[in-house]
């Protein structure tokens, strides 16, 4: 019993630290990547004994230090309690949402089989939706508690936007649940282990079954994380900085981290549901089984490591993709944003659900 609690605690800690580390690294990718796109040099000022590490010292050491040592300003007549709570309410649900995303199949340690997923919930994907919907409060409260017109406008925009896109995202996920017949992300990842057909040696990943759901979830996911082209809640050119205009120091850093953690969750979801999650093509629990008939057996620990690396590569790819989108596209207008959500993505997602149901009926019946 104590051992089991220990294993669960270690898994939770490892995943939490991985998400936080990746969020920090993404700050570096974002600043250096944007510099690359805009033909600048980017963060290169800070250095320790002349060592700048291509901006790593700047983004991973100097920036956090600056945030932590800054004065924490609370505007006059602001609701102090809610002003303090808003960044916490924003960051916490995002951090715990990763618990149901599997980062590997199983790890066999001395006869004890460890499921490489922090929380094997029967209702896994709904848990992520629940946590994301709680994250809205961070935006709403931040906007309201600051006692600032720009913040309030940002908060109102943010809540309307996140509720609107939750619908399309939810319906896209419904189609995926119908495809896999399970809400547990680990089951979904396991279902993508084979090949499409014996004459077509392509991994049976979700993207080949549900390309439309993938596009809807990608758009909706970026909109849920409120990043350009969907960053109307902060829109620097109109609202200064939207719902976190009046935040400085560590509280500002927490909103900043929430952004990146949400990017990582969207990436983890996309990788798990559409690109096999931790699956490596043709890799089963005992080693590689190539379609030509070749077999390369591997020890279990190597298989588990390969799977974890595969999952991390996929997650990092989607993080990179989202950062590239963020620095390439201009911002939507607010009416365009609402039209895309309600008249574009929502009907498409509904049609996708009906189509999926029809195909499942035709195949099974």
């Amino acid at each position, binding site marked *: 019993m104590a051992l089991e609690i220990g294993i669960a605690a270690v898994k939770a800690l490892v995943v939490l630290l991985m998400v936080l580390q990746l969020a920090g690294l993404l700050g570096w990718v974002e600043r250096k990547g944007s510099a690359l796109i805009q033909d600048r040099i980017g963060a290169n000022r800070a250095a320790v004994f002349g060592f700048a590490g291509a901006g790593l010292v700047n983004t991973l050491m100097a920036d956090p230090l600056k945030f932590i040592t800054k004065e924490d300003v609370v505007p006059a007549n602001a*609701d102090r309690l*809610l002003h303090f709570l808003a960044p916490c309410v924003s960051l916490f649900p995002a951090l715990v949402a990763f618990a149901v995303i599997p980062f590997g199949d199983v790890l066999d340690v001395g006869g004890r089989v460890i499921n490489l997923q922090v929380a094997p*919930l*029967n*209702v896994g994907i*709904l*848990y992520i*939706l*629940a946590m994301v*919907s*709680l994250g*809205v*409060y961070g935006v*709403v*409260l931040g*906007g*309201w508690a600051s006692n600032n017109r720009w913040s*309030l406008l940002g*908060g*109102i925009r943010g*809540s*309307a936007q*996140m*509720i609107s896109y*939750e619908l399309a995202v939810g319906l896209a996920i419904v189609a995926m649940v119908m495809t896999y017949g399970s*809400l547990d992300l680990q089951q979904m990842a396991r279902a993508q282990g084979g090949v499409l057909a014996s004459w077509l040696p392509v991994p049976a990943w979700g993207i080949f079954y549900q390309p439309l759901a993938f596009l809807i979830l990608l758009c909706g996911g970026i909109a849920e994380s409120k990043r350009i082209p969907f960053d109307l809640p902060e829109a620097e050119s109109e609202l200064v900085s939207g719902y976190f205009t009046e935040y400085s120091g560590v509280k500002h850093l927490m909103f900043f981290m929430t952004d990146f953690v949400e990017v990582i969750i969207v990436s983890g979801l996309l990788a798990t549901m559409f690109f096999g999650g931790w699956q490596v093509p043709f890799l089963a629990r005992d080693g590689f089984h190539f379609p030509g008939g070749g077999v390369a057996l591997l020890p279990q620990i190597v298989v588990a490591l390969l799977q974890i690396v595969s999952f991390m590569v996929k997650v990092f790819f989607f993080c990179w993709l989202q950062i590239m989108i963020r620095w390439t596209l201009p911002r939507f207008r607010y009416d365009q944003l609402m039209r895309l959500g309600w008249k574009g993505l929502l009907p498409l997602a509904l049609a996708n659900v009906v189509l999926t149901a029809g195909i499942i009926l035709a195949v099974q019946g």
Partner: protein
Amino acid sequence: MSLPLFLAFAVLMVASALGVILQRNPVRSALSLVITLFLLAVTFLFLDAYLVALLQVIVYAGAIMVLFLFVIMLLNLGVEPQDPGRLGLKMFGTLAASLLALELIAVARAPGPMPGSGMAGATPPYFGTVEALGTRLFTHYVLPFEITSILLLVAIIGAVVMAKRTPT
């Protein structure tokens, strides 16, 4: 279900429910309601009803209450002033609350087993899972389920009609 844990959450839930009616600030009241609904979801977790718990968070705490807050913020309601004029309303509220309390006491003191008293002990396998709930909903409760969905559809169409009506 462990009793001390349940009691801790129950006390918190009653406290936050009291916060809904005792706070003067509408935003803080709404937030207390969010906390109450969230703690209610935790109580569902104690009963092994994971799906109901998560739906409670997604639908009530996550969606409906955000709309409440949205409206409060949009109307920019300030702190509600003390209103001594509505004595009739207060008397009506007290009456309704006492009737409810009497009813609860009557149920608790009624002879015979308490409702749900035979359900203590281990829950059957698959209890509260999506499969079990879905099967139940689409076989035993299919008529109420469909009628509810038609009711919601009527409400949506009504909202659209009212929103589209041009001001004269």
